[in-house]
């Protein structure tokens, strides 16, 4: 079964540093997402991306965050200057159609655990 893959599985960075989290969505999917989960808390939406542009973003997704689909297979999340509170598990997800539905559910990767020290 095709799956969403994320790298690295764990990233440790110092406060103020830039990080790039990488994702390879399922190959025929058109909609891409980043969600995050602070340890022990709920999964929170960050951003959705379709047709090479952001289609929706949350209030968490401020100017420190950016997303890019640099080629036909990768989807990246960049945090320009990390803060301690950015420490979380970041999940990439993809779907064939937008919005998640019976016929086009969200498929999540296994996540990248980001630790900011």
């Amino acid at each position, binding site marked *: 079964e095709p799956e969403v893959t994320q790298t690295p599985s764990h990233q440790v960075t110092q406060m103020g540093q830039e990080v790039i989290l990488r994702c390879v969505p399922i190959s025929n999917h058109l909609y891409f997402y980043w969600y995050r989960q602070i340890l022990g808390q709920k999964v929170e939406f960050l951003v959705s991306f379709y047709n090479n542009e952001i289609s929706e973003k*949350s209030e968490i997704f401020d100017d420190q965050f950016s997303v890019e689909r640099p080629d036909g297979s990768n989807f990246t999340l960049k945090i320009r200057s990390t803060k301690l509170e950015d420490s979380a598990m970041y999940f990439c997800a993809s779907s064939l159609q937008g919005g998640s539905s019976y016929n086009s559910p969200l498929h999540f990767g296994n996540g990248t655990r980001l630790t900011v020290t």
Partner: protein
Amino acid sequence: QQQVKQSPQSLIVQKGGIPIINCAYENTAFDYFPWYQQFPGKGPALLIAIRPDVSEKKEGRFTISFNKSAKQFSLHIMDSQPGDSATYFCAARLGAASKLTFGTGTRLQVTL
């Protein structure tokens, strides 16, 4: 109004028991309610989902009950097994092409 409230936070049942996880919402514009299952170190995986025009959806041992007037929905796991031990999240979607809003999760442990 965009929130989805989930309870309990954690739940321990014996093998064969029927854990019930509850969620409540305020926004009547939510149009799709999935449940996700998450094992440690893994991403959430879709378990079962329901639309608000249906009162019950069953897939295998998993059943969603939906009460539109009360704005509540719940997940029942029949004949629970130790392999069902995981964190369960309810979620809701606000219209087509919109993001999912997740509940706070329920950590389920099924003991032998």
